[in-house]
């Protein structure tokens, strides 16, 4: 049978339902974000781990210009290596029926007559290509899906200058290409970029690479010294144009997944504590009020013989019931959001399967953390009532003592009305509660700033990258470095209005013991399509002597203008050139260094070469240009700036919009939880004096003003605090994103602050209005009959 105290508990809850619900919702946000972030983290991490293990994802990677396959035994002999696969990897142009613009592709060889030792393929449909069947390919599933390809379909590729019809025999997934982006792209566009796999024999024939390889992946033994292995591989590949081995950390697909996991980890460690803190504070606030109101009842219960455990447990139960309601909502929301996020991941990351992983311990974790947080909030009030002797408890609490501002030297009523003075004195009487309420509200402003600023940053990023730095319409890259004639060929293509050549090569930049693998770009003297910008976005000339490096490179190598840097030309047997740093460039993507094309060619000492051309296009002649490019054998890839930009904007905006809606909901819940509860507590504490005011003839609006002034002070003070906290959150988000792949500038426009404040203020006003209705219903007579 339900005990009498439990009956009281249920009635208390029914009486407090609105406040309890507001707190439960804040707790729900905490629980939901734990389940969402930790669950998604685990799903992604474990799925990736399983895929990597089962399909033997490499640990070390390297590429070279052309190395003989007989090196294989020497590579296998390197201590710590457990498996090696030597491959041919070549960028190609694709011509897909129904698509005007050429797509870019990556052709990768797979071993004949045996399974690959490293980076095995997961066969989704069909089969792998047969050895010696020169036209059979297995394509990566995302590309096939984007074009509706099934085994038996065909597409064309320009392979080594020849158009080649390819037959799709299978759809595959690869642990190397879970996330794959094409040249010039910032987000995956599976329609315009496809990876496909061919028999080694067939591919080596097509690229004249018999008995040679240009790419290597190796698995290593547990606890192997990766750095040492990379060094050994570099030594072996140096004579063959080896561009430097790298590990998983720098493998593009893996690095993007790492960045995603890092963000989830950051989310799991930042967002839930905000909600748990706010809910602990709210629990503290309503429980201490409830206990004050029930003080005499508690005294009576004690006098009747109820023990401290029974009484403390009674109030603890109340809090736990609220926490459980929060958990139920939070678990549902967490699961729903987690499944949604995992589905979103499935759009970007190609796994054989990716399900939102739930396990009992995840929910147990959320429950443990939520209940602990709420009990932490309750402990002070419960302790206070437990230690109170029954005789003292049964006497009403001593009347509230107020103090004058500044020890009576300041008379506020000279400046404010009595009603305003009442509101301010109430604030000063409980400064800690006022400060905490303000802090709680400011967290919702901060969450919004941290969510909304991404629009500003991405806008700035798009403007800088696509309109200030790389202003070309397309970038054509040649199969290999070509002479100046190639530039004339490009200029002659239909629709080309302007053309600027560039040359690029992979290098290792070294300063003392700091080293970075990257590429240097040589730009013509008056380069206008692609520009080098300093951190004020003012253009810099490509240096004739020396190197302009991007900020990220400067940070990694601890370099400043005027310093000297060693440039190891990996394709030229590791010859080292020593160059001065002449400037630092603003760049948000990748690691870059620039110099003038002439200086570049002088440094290379191999003649006047170019790697590709940036072009401006007459839009009316696009179709003709695309057609011509597809028929130009020397072009290995084309990056289309407008399409890349639109795809980037579309993808990012879709993600940000989803994220922002979630954050707005979270912020509204915090605001509601804090403002509503604060107003209810105020009303409970001041019902008597407010009713007295009504009796003296003050109107409802005047009486409400007393309540609203304190709320307004809380909400207004929360704004600047929230902006500062939001700035800090945004800063840490930006820091979390910072990687060699890309960095996000910290740009927060004024309207982002304004919107964050507007949303919170609207939520606050609505919460206050709900309480305002209670002021209208104050029982004037009852309140006069009772002593507080």
């Amino acid at each position, binding site marked *: 049978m339900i005990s009498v105290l439990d009956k009281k508990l249920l009635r208390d809850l029914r009486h407090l339902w609105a406040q309890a619900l507001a707190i439960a919702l804040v707790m729900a946000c905490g629980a939901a974000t734990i389940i969402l972030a930790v669950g998604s983290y685990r799903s992604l991490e474990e799925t990736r781990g399983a895929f990597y293990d089962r399909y033997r994802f490499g640990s070390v990677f390297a590429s070279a210009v052309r190395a003989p396959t007989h090196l294989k035994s020497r590579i296998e002999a390197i201590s710590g290596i457990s498996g090696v696969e030597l491959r041919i990897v070549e960028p190609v142009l694709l011509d897909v029926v129904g698509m005007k613009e050429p797509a870019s592709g990556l052709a990768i060889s797979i071993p004949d007559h045996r399974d690959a030792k490293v980076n095995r393929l997961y066969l989704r449909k069909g089969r792998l290509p047969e050895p010696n069947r020169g036209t059979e390919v297995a394509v990566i599933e995302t590309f096939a899906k984007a074009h509706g390809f099934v085994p038996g379909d065909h597409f064309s590729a320009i392979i080594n200058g020849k158009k080649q019809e390819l037959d799709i025999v299978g759809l595959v997934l690869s642990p190397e290409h879970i996330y794959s982006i094409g040249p010039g792209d910032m987000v995956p566009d599976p329609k315009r970029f496809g990876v496909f796999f061919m028999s080694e024999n067939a591919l080596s024939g097509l690229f004249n690479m018999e008995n040679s390889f240009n790419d290597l992946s190796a698995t290593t033994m547990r606890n192997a010294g990766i750095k040492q292995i990379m060094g050994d591989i570099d030594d072996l590949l140096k004579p063959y144009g080896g561009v430097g081995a790298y590990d998983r950390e720098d493998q593009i697909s893996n690095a993007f997944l790492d960045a995603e996991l890092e963000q989830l980890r950051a989310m799991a460690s930042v967002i839930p504590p905000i909600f748990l803190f706010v809910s602990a504070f709210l629990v503290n606030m309503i429980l201490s009020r409830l206990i004050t109101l029930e003080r005499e009842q508690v005294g009576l219960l004690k006098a009747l013989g109820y023990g401290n455990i029974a009484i403390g447990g009674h109030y603890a139960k109340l809090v736990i019931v609220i926490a459980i309601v929060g958990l139920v909502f939070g678990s549902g929301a967490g699961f729903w959001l987690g499944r949604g996020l995992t589905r979103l991941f499935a759009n970007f990351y190609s796994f054989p399967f990716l399900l939102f992983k739930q396990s009992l311990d995840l929910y147990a974790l959320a429950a443990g953390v939520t209940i602990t947080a709420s009990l932490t909030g309750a402990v002070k009030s419960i302790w206070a009532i437990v230690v109170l002797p029954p005789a003292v408890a049964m006497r009403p609490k001593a009347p509230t003592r107020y103090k004058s501002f500044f020890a009576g030297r300041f008379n506020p009523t000279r400046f404010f009305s*009595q009603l305003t003075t009442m509101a301010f004195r109430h604030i000063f009487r409980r400064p800690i509660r006022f400060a905490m309420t303000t802090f709680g509200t400011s967290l919702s402003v901060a969450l919004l700033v941290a969510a909304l600023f991404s629009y500003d940053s991405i806008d700035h990023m798009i403007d800088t990258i696509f309109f200030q730095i790389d202003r070309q319409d397309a970038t054509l890259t040649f199969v290999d470095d070509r002479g100046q004639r190639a530039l004339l060929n490009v200029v002659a293509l239909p629709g080309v209005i302007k053309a600027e050549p560039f040359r690029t090569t992979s290098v290792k930049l070294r300063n003392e013991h700091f080293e970075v693998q990257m590429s240097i770009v040589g730009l013509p003297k008056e380069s206008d399509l692609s520009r080098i910008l300093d951190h004020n976005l003012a253009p810099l000339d490509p240096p004739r002597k020396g190197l302009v490096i991007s900020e990220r490179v400067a940070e990694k190598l601890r370099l400043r203008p005027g310093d000297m840097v060693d440039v190891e030309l990996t394709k030229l047997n590791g010859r080292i050139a020593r160059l001065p740093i002449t400037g630092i460039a603003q760049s948000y993507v990748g690691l870059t260094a620039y110099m003038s094309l002439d200086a570049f060619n002088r440094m290379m000492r191999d003649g006047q070469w170019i790697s590709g051309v940036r072009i401006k296009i007459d839009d009316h002649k696009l179709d003709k240009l695309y057609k011509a490019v597809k028929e130009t054998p020397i072009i290995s890839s084309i990056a289309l700036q407008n399409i890349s930009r639109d795809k980037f904007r579309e993808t990012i905006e879709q993600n940000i919009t989803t994220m922002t809606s979630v954050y707005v909901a979270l912020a509204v819940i915090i605001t509601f939880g804090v403002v509503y509860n604060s107003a209810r507590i105020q009303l409970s504490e001041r019902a008597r004096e407010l009713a007295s005011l009504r009796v003296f003839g003050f109107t409802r609006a005047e009486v409400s003003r007393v309540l609203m002034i304190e709320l307004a002070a809380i909400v207004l003070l929360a704004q600047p605090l929230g902006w500062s906290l939001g700035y800090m959150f945004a800063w840490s988000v930006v820091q979390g994103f910072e990687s060699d792949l890309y960095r996000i500038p910290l740009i927060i426009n004024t309207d982002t602050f304004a919107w964050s404040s507007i949303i919170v203020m609207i939520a606050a006003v609505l919460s206050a209005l709900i309480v305002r209705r209670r002021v209208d219903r104050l029982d004037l007579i009852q309140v006069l009959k009772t002593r507080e």
Partner: protein
Amino acid sequence: MTVLLGPSGSGKSTFLNIVGGLDQATSGTVFFKDTELTSCNERQLTRYRRDHVGFVFQFYNLIPSLTAWENVALVTEVAKSPMRVDDALALVGLENRMTHFPAELSGGEQQRVAIARAIVKRPEVLLCDEPTGALDSKTGIVVLEALSKINEDLGTTTAIITHNAGIQQIAHRVISFLDGRISNIHENSSRIKPAEVVW
């Protein structure tokens, strides 16, 4: 000055609440001058309380966050032609306690602040519900003296609800209540001073 007498539940407070515009009568009519209170809406009743009525309650109902002076000044902010706050407090003998908060005042002092607050707006009617109910005899007499003085000095119509039959002798008129009805009305031919009230 009228004293309303009667046992608990006899209807004194309900009468006072209706007359004071705090409650609506279920039947019958109540007039204040030419205004029919029983047909007033909430807004009009608020206006009526604001402009014409002063209240004094058993538990004082002072605003704890305002000093004695400010509690009185509170009413002057919305009154049409209030007296000076200092004068109102002097009338109840509290000119030296003006800067104290309610928690720093004795029960009798708090009730005198409440009286000063009720009369500062020069109300036409002063309604007191058990003004001495929470006070000892000595303090109670001080409060009654304040009420009598106001009645005499300002001529404010004053109604005092009490359980204490001894108080009836200070009034001009005594109305007795029983079971929700007026059972008796009589005029005192001779009145005593509050100090002579036997508690």
